[in-house]
């Protein structure tokens, strides 16, 4: 009984540690102040406060959600969508977030962009449902269970049909593994167009425009050259875009 009490106490200290340190306290007070500005309709000030928390090196789902909403109210739909999508990395199943994100996508008239990669299309729903942390946790637990099950069913209580169990577990494990790998790959160098712009053939002001990039469209960042980003669009087309029109996730 005493042991349980001590464990709970340690856990509580561990969980509330985030609130105890001064940086977190400062973040919370900035968050409250941003809330106040938002309620007063001073969205520019609210944005400043929210971004102040980000510049302290801290982030959270509700923080990005509120920042996205402040940008929306300020009329900057591209940045609103960017921050809603960032929030998805923490609270992917939040219904308010889904609603707001879809509203912004509608208003930006982005349409339904699907990846040409079959594997990515198959796993899109799966990827959207979990955060990376959740996926990594599920993979760790599943991996552990598979290894222990193998020992148990082979040596301790041998069952003839153990291979069926193992194959099912391994199948689930690989589904999560592929999902996780795709998610990590997807989120590396992920960026968004925050101002509608043309993608040029070359990183030069006078270069010919290759195609148009809409505000809110997602692109992959390939490299940087003297104020220009080389990017790849969902359909694989490459192009050069002025740096100020693109923001990394």
């Amino acid at each position: 009984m005493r042991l349980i009490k001590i464990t709970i106490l340690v856990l509580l200290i561990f969980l509330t540690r985030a609130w105890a340190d001064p940086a977190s306290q400062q973040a919370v007070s900035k968050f409250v102040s941003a809330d106040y500005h938002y309620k007063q309709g001073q969205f520019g000030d609210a944005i400043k406060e929210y971004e102040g928390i980000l510049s302290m090196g801290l982030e959270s789902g509700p923080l990005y959600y509120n920042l996205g909403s402040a940008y929306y109210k300020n009329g900057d739909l591209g940045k609103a969508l960017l921050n809603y999508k960032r929030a998805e990395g923490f609270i992917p199943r939040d219904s308010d977030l889904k609603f707001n994100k879809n509203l912004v996508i509608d208003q930006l008239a982005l349409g339904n962009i699907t990846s040409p990669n079959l594997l990515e299309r198959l796993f899109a729903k799966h990827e959207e449902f979990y955060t990376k942390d959740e996926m990594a946790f599920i993979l760790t637990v599943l991996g552990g269970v598979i290894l222990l099950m193998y020992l148990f069913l082979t040596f301790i209580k041998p069952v003839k049909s153990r291979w069926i169990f193992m194959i099912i577990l391994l199948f689930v494990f690989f589904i999560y593994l592929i999902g996780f790998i795709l998610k990590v790959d997807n989120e590396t160098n992920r960026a968004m167009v925050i101002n509608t712009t043309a993608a040029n053939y070359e990183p030069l002001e006078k270069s010919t425009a290759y195609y148009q990039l809409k505000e809110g469209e997602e692109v992959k960042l390939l490299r940087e050259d003297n104020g220009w980003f080389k990017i790849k669009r969902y359909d694989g087309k490459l192009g050069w875009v002025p740096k100020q029109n693109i923001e990394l996730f």
Partner: protein
Amino acid sequence: MIGLVLTLACPLWAQDVSVVADVSQNQVDLGGTLQLTVTVNGGKDIATFDLPKMDGLDARFLGPSTRISIMNGQYSSSKAYIYNLLPLKVGKFQIPSITVSVDGKEYQTQAIDIEVVNSGTASPDQSTASGQEASLKDKIFMVLKPSKTEVYVNEPVPVKILLYVSNLSVRDVHYPEFDKSNMSVEEYKQPKQYNQVVNGVRYDVVEFETTIYPAKSGELKLGPASLECSLLYRTQNANSPFGQMESFFDDSFFSGFNYSKRPLTIQSLEASVNVLDLPEANRPSDFSGAIGDFKFEVSADPKEIKVGDPITVKMRVSGEGNLKTAELPAYKNLNHLKTYDPQVKEDGATKTLEQVLIPQIESVKEIPSVQFSYFDPATKDYKTIKQGPFPITVNALPKEEQPRVVRTIPNEERTVGALETLGRDIVYIKPEIGVLHKRGDAFYLRTWYWVFVFLFFGLWISALFYFEHNNRLLRDAYYARRMLAHKEAKRGLSLARKALEVNNLQGVYDDLFKTLQRYLADKYKVSQGEITKNSLKAHLGQSYLDPQTISRLESFLEEAEQARYASLSLTKDQARKSIETVEVLIGVMERSSK
């Protein structure tokens, strides 16, 4: 049947007949040659023909060549008659018009002027860089052609940029570039490629087409356009290992290996377009910038509805011209017709608008008319197209379907249905900051996570080996014997020591012999009875034991047999030494079996 097929097929193969003559170059050195090609496009029955007499040129027929091509889905065939022309003297000459009879009809080619220069006088000029450039400019050049020279601001102007190439191999052709100030420019269309004869020389033409929209009035300078490409030219390989053989390979098929690339930038001349402002006179109040020639269509469906049901109005403007800034006349503030925000889509020179209208009372009889105005540059005047009004029938709701009045506001009735379809906005912000994370941090990137994973995996591997070992001891008798052999041997040795203590020397040898026999049987998978001094080599020959150990084993077994059966006089010391020997031997065998 075949005849029918042929007659049916004939019109498909029919094509316009043309006869063209061209030369590989207009200027030639005395002593050089040039090629004359008479090409008959289309036609089936081509009569043989002779070249007319040419002053100063000697012609030799090289042969015909037939080409069949299917371009853009169209079939075409052509037959080329190729001649080699050898200039006989310096001067200006003309290849006269050539008459060719095709399908019974006579066709004539145009005359071509040729200049023959002295190779001695031409060469110094040709060898200089400018000379090369000059000759290159005849072989590759670019022309910038706007389709109109007088246009209005924002009027679309198709611009063609034509790259002409003759007798050169050009690769890596980029899209042409030009200064785009004071205009907006569309993306290039898919380039077209075709042949064209200019001044008697056949050129491969690459046609780039785009559309520009002048942004302000005045003279608009277009170009010069520049284009980057690579020129393939043949390199002379002096150190070729083939030497004389090279002439054998000096053929376009083999000499592909000897080509090099050289980057080349080609510039066109400038062109200018006079840009006019749109006239102020007669400008309709609803004009929103559409320039061109358009159709305006409007439809409203359904025509008969109940109060509160939606009617969709579709407007479509299509035609040729610029619609980028044009606005379609969406409905606003109508009496007893609730209007919703329209959805506008643009696809090239077509703009569509969809708008939902909801009649709020039965007395609404029509949707008012709408009009669309544009400027037509062909007639230099504004035009307005009016559509409507559109008659509709609005029926009252049956009693049971009538919306329940929730509350009454003076001058305005609000219903549940109307409340639900009001504007759209985002969901309100969150009151709590939630769990704060360090940016870019994840638990699976931390060291403790990987320490835990490796520790777990290590433990699992150990457990696997432990279970596997236990399982094998139960299943595999030989494995179990081998594993337990050392333990058994130790037990045998302690029995022997006990026998020594009570001075039972024969018993000592008995125990030692049995211990050794059992150990060897367990270790080397043989039955105990088979282990004798004579059979030892046969059983242990394959093992890792060194011959010295085997011979020591043999001598001990012999000594033990003698001690057990021949009544030798045994001393306690000897017996103790024997125990030590057996202990050492077992130790050696234990180590070598690992």
